[in-house]
């Protein structure tokens, strides 16, 4: 850990808030992407089954 002196709180809070925001954005994007892929696969599967049945 580098010696941050009297500005340690400012530097650490800037890094903490920024990395939290960026990690949140990445997580949100990945989770939303996976959910959408699963929903689409399920809907396409159901459509295919419906066509086979009719």
């Amino acid at each position, binding site marked *: 850990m580098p*010696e941050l002196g009297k500005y340690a709180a400012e530097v650490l809070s*800037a890094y903490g808030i920024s990395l939290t925001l960026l990690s949140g954005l990445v997580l949100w994007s990945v989770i939303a992407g996976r959910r959408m892929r699963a929903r689409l696969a399920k*809907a*396409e599967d159901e*459509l295919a089954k419906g066509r086979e049945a009719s």
Partner: protein
Amino acid sequence: MSLWEYANPRRFMAASGAVLPWISGLAAVLVALGLAWGFFGTPDDYRQGSTVKIFYLHVPAAMIAINAWLMMLVASLIWLIRRHHVSALAAKAAAPVGLTMTVVTLVTGAIWGQPMWGTWWEWDPRLTSFLILGLFYLGYLALWEAIDDPDAAADLTSVLCLVGSVFAILSRYALVFWNQGLHQGASLSLDKEQNVADVFWWPAMVTLAGFVCLFVALVLLRTRTEIRARRLKAVVARARMS
């Protein structure tokens, strides 16, 4: 091969699926390397002390926040002129990334400004134009959510994007247009005389490259999600009809 071929959603999905793992990995490595180098491996500034370490987050985030809007502008113009759906969806996908980068810029700027300027906020031309850019990002996202018809939403958000581009450009050149305010001039410039010292410049460039890769990776990932959401609507509509 023409770039326009990627306006085809199938081609876009195939190409972006191949590129995404590599660009994501590169983003993770460069952001981690650049920030670790800047945080642990660089000295304090003789005037700003250790707060100079905020530079490695603040400047790359600001550059992405501005250029994300300019990317949205290009994508919006492509939508308005050539009606390629992928370009409208890419613009929509980039907006949350640009908004997050704008928030990171404003927050790190406020935290940095307090000990250096003695204030969290000042109605300085660059700070104010950046805040307005952030509000344009919010308005752009709200407009997408407010309109049900996707083509009408793409039309109106594209027009909003054209208008907001004035503030994206202002937030970059505010200091040149109005030579006043607390904010300093460019820290990273093509003009070597204006640049910060090499010891700060190199880790900043690595972090900036990482942020660019992160932006591209997130836009590709989110555009793929938007394309799948469109496809899902079509599949659901087809299922209802059959």
